[in-house]
């Protein structure tokens, strides 16, 4: 049976990962993500599952790649600086095509930035942080309950598409406790990586006959052993390196197509009061909650405004945004950064409607009142919404 609990998003992610079948965790502590490993360190040994704190974020994600390649569901969790360190191995996970969940509890950046404060500054890093043309899936829940659902979904997507999935939360969600429901594993759909139907002798880890070739567990429950090779180099169906141009092109195209051709399974989004909307707020994660309040308030005054909320950040919900662009007069992208997702919305909208931004990278949540003000007058710049009294609390300013 499921459980009702009063938890923040960090604890929710930890619990949900176990529901999803987490089999290995490796991490390195960093604010504001540390509660995830702290909670797992308590529970995982009780369930007989390996839990490791490694020497750095690089080691953590690499250990996860090793565990996952051998057949175990793995997760690592971090925040900004650690997410930067993980990028090279994130690319290896893309190249190996091994399932992996990487949680990034976004804090203010760049560099050490604002360790305890929320941000959404890693949106583009999640997409392009590692080098080369790689596909990525990134999801962003808006509260702890959704973090439960999206964590489970992240594992499922990772397993289904042999693909690392980035789960983006933020420093405010890691504090906000709410009442949530943690389902029992048998209440939810759990996806496990497809297993080959052929014997080990006839198995290819990148079989050309599949869009997502089955990834054999090294040691199966019925005692079989699939010995094969995975390489971070461009490889052919056998997993061995090749420089043959056609294979290189094929591999990258298939890697992208396995995601892009399945947007309908990967994309998730919410339309909020969009039916007759003339202004579309685009917001995700905790910012979406502020937008919701602002929209309700504006609606009370008869302003036709709604929200499009992507839960899947990457790949982009291009068709959906393009469709909205043909119906609304304007977009307002609200996000805790200087306009990263706005850039993506602009690209998709392609000039069909003006795109405004509430782009705040101040280490404080965007408030409903700020979004409300922007709805009232999109051309006006929105100032950081803090009272004198609150500003005093931040002290100094050095």
């Amino acid at each position, binding site marked *: 049976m499921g459980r009702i609990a009063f938890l923040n998003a960090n604890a929710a992610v930890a619990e949900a990962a176990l529901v999803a079948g987490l089999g290995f965790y490796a991490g390195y502590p960093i604010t504001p993500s540390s509660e995830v490993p702290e909670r797992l360190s308590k529970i995982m040994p009780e369930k007989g599952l390996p839990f490791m704190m490694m020497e750095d974020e690089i080691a953590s994600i690499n250990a996860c790649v090793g565990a996952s390649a051998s057949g175990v569901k793995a997760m690592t969790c971090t925040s900004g600086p650690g997410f930067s360190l993980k990028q090279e191995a994130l690319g290896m996970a893309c190249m190996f095509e091994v399932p992996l969940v990487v949680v990034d509890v976004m804090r203010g950046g760049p560099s050490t930035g604002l360790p305890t404060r929320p941000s959404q500054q890693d949106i583009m890093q999640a997409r392009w942080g590692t080098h080369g043309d790689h596909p990525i899936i990134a999801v962003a829940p808006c509260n702890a309950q959704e973090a439960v659902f999206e964590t489970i979904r992240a594992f499922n997507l990772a397993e289904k598409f042999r693909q690392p999935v980035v789960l983006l939360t933020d420093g405010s969600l890691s*504090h*906000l406790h*709410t009442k949530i429901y943690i389902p029992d594993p048998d209440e939810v759909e759990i996806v496990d990586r497809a297993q080959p139907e052929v014997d080990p002798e006839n198995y290819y880890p990148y079989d050309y006959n599949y869009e997502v070739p089955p990834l054999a567990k090294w040691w199966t429950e019925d005692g079989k052993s699939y010995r094969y090779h995975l390489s971070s180099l461009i490889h052919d169906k056998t997993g061995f390196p090749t420089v043959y141009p056609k294979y290189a092109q094929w591999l990258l195209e298939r890697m992208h197509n396995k995601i892009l051709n399945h947007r309908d399974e990967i994309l998730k989004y919410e339309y909020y009061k969009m039916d007759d909307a003339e202004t579309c707020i685009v917001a995700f994660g905790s910012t979406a909650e502020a937008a919701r309040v602002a929209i309700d308030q504006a609606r009370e005054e008869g302003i036709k405004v709604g929200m499009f909320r992507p839960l899947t950040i990457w790949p982009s919900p291009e068709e959906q945004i393009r469709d909205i662009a043909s119906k609304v007069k304007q977009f307002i992208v609200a996000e805790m950064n200087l306009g990263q997702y706005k850039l993506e919305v602009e690209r998709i909208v392609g000039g069909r409607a003006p795109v405004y931004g509430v782009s705040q990278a101040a280490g404080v949540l965007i408030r409903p009142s700020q979004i409300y003000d922007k709805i009232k007058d999109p051309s006006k710049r929105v100032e950081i919404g803090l009272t004198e009294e*609150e500003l005093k609390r931040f002290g100094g300013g050095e």
Partner: protein
Amino acid sequence: MGFHYELRFAGVGGQGSLTAGTILAHAAVFHTNYYATQVPTYTSQVRGGAAKADIIISDTPIVFAESTNVDFFLATHQKAYDAYKGDLKKGADVLVDSGLVKVPDEDAKIYKIYEYPLVKVAKYEIGNVVTMNVLAVGICVGLTHVLDVEAVRETVKEEVPERFLDMNLKAFDMGLEVGEKFRREGPTKK
């Protein structure tokens, strides 16, 4: 809007005043039909820095959990009082430790100030300073009636370690009585 109540529990790191908030939030979500949120805030100083936990209890889902109209405020340290009194509603109930917080006279004109030697009573009358939280919870419930007494008592039973249970229940009942008295007699600082 139906029922919507904001509480703030503030102290300095290490004092543990924030757990008083946790008990109330847990009571709301596990033993009543209310919604509740809890947002702890710490300053970078781990020990000795001001810290608070904001609790919102409501009969409708809380979408954006921001405390801007605090109805009840507990402060167990001067630093915490000064730092976090900013978002109080006019006429808010404010409970302070009379030994550790000195409330400016002008504040008493805006808020209802109740002073009580929480730490001292916990330490010397009840017998252990750790009961200070539950004592404060008792006063809060007695004074504000924000939650059903039995719901909170049940939560206290669940939350505190067994060996401290009797002591804490005693603290809770004492707190309730003090709270009810405050409720009848009004603020201690006029």
